[in-house]
Structure formats: C-alpha cells, structure tokens
C-alpha cells in the first residue's frame, strides 16, 4: 500500500471530494442551508507542492441542470475553504448566510414579494 499523504485539514480524516464534498448540503453558522456544493476549486501552490482545495463553489443545481443556463465562472458563489468549520452530513461554514451575499434572487423575492404580503414578516401564530 502506498504511503498515504498526511491529512492535516480539519479532523485529520481522509476526505473523498466526490463522496464527502460534492452535492453535500452547506449550512451557515446558525445551521441555515446555503445551497449545495456544485464544484470544488483546486489550486496548485505557486512554488509547487500538493494541490489544495481553495474554495467550494455553491449552487442550487436548478438553473444549470434544469434550464441549461451556464453561469460564467466569476459569477458563481465561491466560499473560501478557510471558512469551512466542519465536514459532517452537511458542510458547516463560519459565516452567516446574509454576509455571504449569495442569492440575489432570494433577496429580491424577500424584499419585493414575500416580505410585502401581509404577515410575511411575522412569525406564524
């Protein structure tokens, strides 16, 4: 068996990007869902060395898969790997979903539609 590289990241587990990262649910600091992992950005450090995961690209998978819309790379929601706090059944981030600034559609829907219908901004009774 070849020597496995050490895994210093997180809890020192061996992570399979396909199995443990891709399409996992992403959760913010408070446990709110923030899309899912659509892709993983891998960088090779300039001085050489092992490639590292630079960021996770998030997406709902609906626009791309359902309507065939291809987002330009720069407009995809990337989250730096340093913000990942835990890899479990979901991937937890250290940021809250509001500060991630993702989902203009959600903001628009909240401010222009849902928030304007009476009762939209109140807890259910």
């Amino acid at each position, binding site marked *: 068996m070849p020597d496995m590289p050490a895994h210093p990241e997180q809890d020192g587990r061996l992570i399979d990007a396909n199995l*443990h990262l*891709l*399409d*996992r*649910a*992403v959760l913010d600091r408070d446990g*709110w*869902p*923030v*899309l*899912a992992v*659509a892709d993983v950005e891998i960088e090779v450090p300039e001085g050489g060395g092992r490639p590292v995961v630079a960021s996770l690209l*998030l997406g*709902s*998978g*609906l626009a*791309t*898969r*359902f309507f065939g819309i291809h987002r330009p790379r720069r407009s995809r929601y990337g989250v730096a790997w340093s913000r990942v706090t835990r890899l*479990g*059944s*979901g991937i937890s981030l250290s940021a809250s*979903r509001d500060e991630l600034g993702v*989902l203009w*559609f*959600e903001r628009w*829907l*909240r401010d222009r*539609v*849902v*928030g304007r*219908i009476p*009762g*939209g*901004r*109140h*807890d*259910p*009774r």
Partner: protein
Amino acid sequence: MSGSAGKVFAVTLGILTAIGGFVDIGDLVTNAVVGSRFGLSLAWVVVVGVGGIAVFAHMSGKVTAISGRATFEVIRERLGPRAALANLVGSMAMTLLTLTAEIGGVALALQLLSGVVPVLVVLPVALVLWMALWRVTFSWLENVAGLLGLLLLVFVVALLSLGPDWSALAGQVVQDGPDTGESGLTYAYYAVALFGAAMTPYEVFFFSSGAAEERWTSQDLWRSRLNVLVGFPLGGLLSLAIAGCAAVVLLPQGISVTSLSQVVAPVGVALGTAGVVVVAVGVLAATAGAALETALSCGYSVAQFAGWPWGKRVRPARAPQFHLVVLGAIVIGSLVLLTGVDPVMVTEFSVVFSAVALPLTYFPVLVVANDPDYVGEHTNGAVLNGVALAYLVIILAAALAAVPLMVLTRMGA
C-alpha cells in the same frame, strides 16, 4: 409530574394525529372502490402497504433525526445533481397530482355538507389553505387536522353497527383472487392502486421534514417509532373499515364506487344523518390536512434539493423561495381543478403514479439508512434490512406493473 404528564400528552397527540393523518383522499376513494367491487379480498394489500410505509418512514425519520439531513438533501448528495433532479421532477409531479386530488377532495367534502358544486369552491378553498400555510404554526395545523381526521373512525363504528356477517367477511379476506365478475388483471390493478394509496411518498417527505424542523435528535427516535408502529397500523385499520363498509352495504347492491358521495353512503345506512355529517367533516379535515402536507412537501423537496432555507416554523420572509414553491403548487393544483376534471379521477391517477414514483425515494433512503456517515451506530440491523429489501422488491414490482396494468384494464374499468 406535570413534565411527564405533558410528555404523555405529547406522545398521545402524536399517535392520534398519525392515525387521523394517515387517511387521505387516496385511501378514502381507493379503499371504498376496492371494497365495493372486491369485498375484503384485497385487505392483504393494505396490511403490506402499512408495513411498507412504516419501514420507509422509520428509516427516513432515523436518517433525519441523527444526521439532521432531510430526504431530498440526502437524495441529491447520493445520486448527484443530474439523477437527483430527474428524481425531484418525478416526485414533484407525483406530489402535485396528489395535492390536486386533495384540494378536490376538500371541495367534494364541502359539496356533501352544503350542496355547492365543487368547481365553485376550489378558489376559496385554495386561498384558505394558502393562508393557513402562510400564517398558522405547524403544530396547530397538524393537531387540528389530525384530531378532526379522527372523526373518520366513524367508519369503524358504522361497520360494527352494520352487524355484518363476520365469517363471510373473513372468508373474503382469505380468499385469493377476485370474485366472479371481475378479471384477474383488474384485481392486480387495484392491488397496485391500493398499495400506492397506502404508501404515498409525500407522507415520508413530510414526516422527515417535520422531524428536521422540530430538530429531532437520536433521543427522539422512540417517538418516531411510536408514531410509526402504533399510528400507522391504526390508520391502516381505518382504511380496512372504509373498505369493509363498502363491502357490506354497496357490494350486495351492485354499486361500484365512482364518487365520494358513494364512499360515505354506507355510514348513512348504518348511523343515519348524524353519521353522514360526522363522516363529511372527517373527510373535510383529512383532505384539508393532506392538502397542507402535500403543498408543504412540494416546498420541502425543491428547497432541500436546491439548498434554500425552508420551514414552516419561521416567518415566510426567512424562506422566500420555499413559500413561493408552496404557493405555486397550490395555484397549479387549483387551476387543474378549475378545468372541471373529476377529482375522483385525479385521485385514481395519483395513487397509481405514487406506486410508480415510490422507488425514486425509497431506494436512496434505504442506502443512507445503512451509511454510518449519516446514521452512525444506528445503521439498519439485519432484520430491518431483510424486511426493507423485501419491500424494495415489492415496490419495484408494483412500480413496473402499474402503468401496463393501468392501460390493460383501462384504469380498472
């Protein structure tokens, strides 16, 4: 002391709502149709179906309670975006069809109570359902619909007071195959439909999403088990009583059920006017409750797939996409009904296609219930896996047979 009394109350409430929430328009119509045409000779399907939904709900409740992940998050993670999206579309179409049938059921129940033509009440009903989902808390909806749904137990009372020839009924239960006058294919078709009625996928989305919303943990597993092991079988018993009433009153008169008014007619024969009113209110509550659950299930499925915030406990502005999907689902269902299509026909389609769509969600849940990554030490034991695999075979067989049988028998004509 008051703490444990409160606990007993909560548990009882959970079981009661599980019974009241088990029966929806699909169970009402399919059981009555089958009872009026085949007597109790298809009772075994209800038993098999209740076992199946119990196994399915138990596994998905477990996955949610321990991993915190709801059904469609798991499905996407396991199947990847492409296959999961196909799965989502199939399940959504199915749940929308069921939602349409339930709203139609509400309209039909109102017709029985007031005499107003169903098409006229579709829009008001849709508006009330949406407002309830917009403003009323989850537990209120669940408890009111579930407890009023218990009025359907009047079918059990009716069957007992009809004083049927029990040995003749028992004879129908053990006879294999249809009686004279019905073909074997029609019998098989209704076996699949009855199975689909008992095992509707939305029940499981709803069950596991509810568990996620209430933030169940492994400590709550016993609650899931109680609801599943006590509530569902009692709900199944209620289904059998519906079939039994039709078998005792309608079958001998040669009336085969094609409308909701015929479903409730035996209760009138047994218990008179009061019985008719009680059963109509029960049908109203059961279908309204199921309409709310299916509308929520549409929102749950899409939001979980996409990773949008979802939930009924938070203010709508916190989960805008979720509420948009729920609203859209109600609008589509109502528009379909406004075309004047017969809700009973929609129901018959919905139970058959629910049998078709079942493997899409059952299989991924079965896989994940065996994955320590998700459920830790609570992976399925050998016995549960044996049962779950047996059900996988049954579910696949039903799904494959459903459409050919439907075409062959011209929808059970």
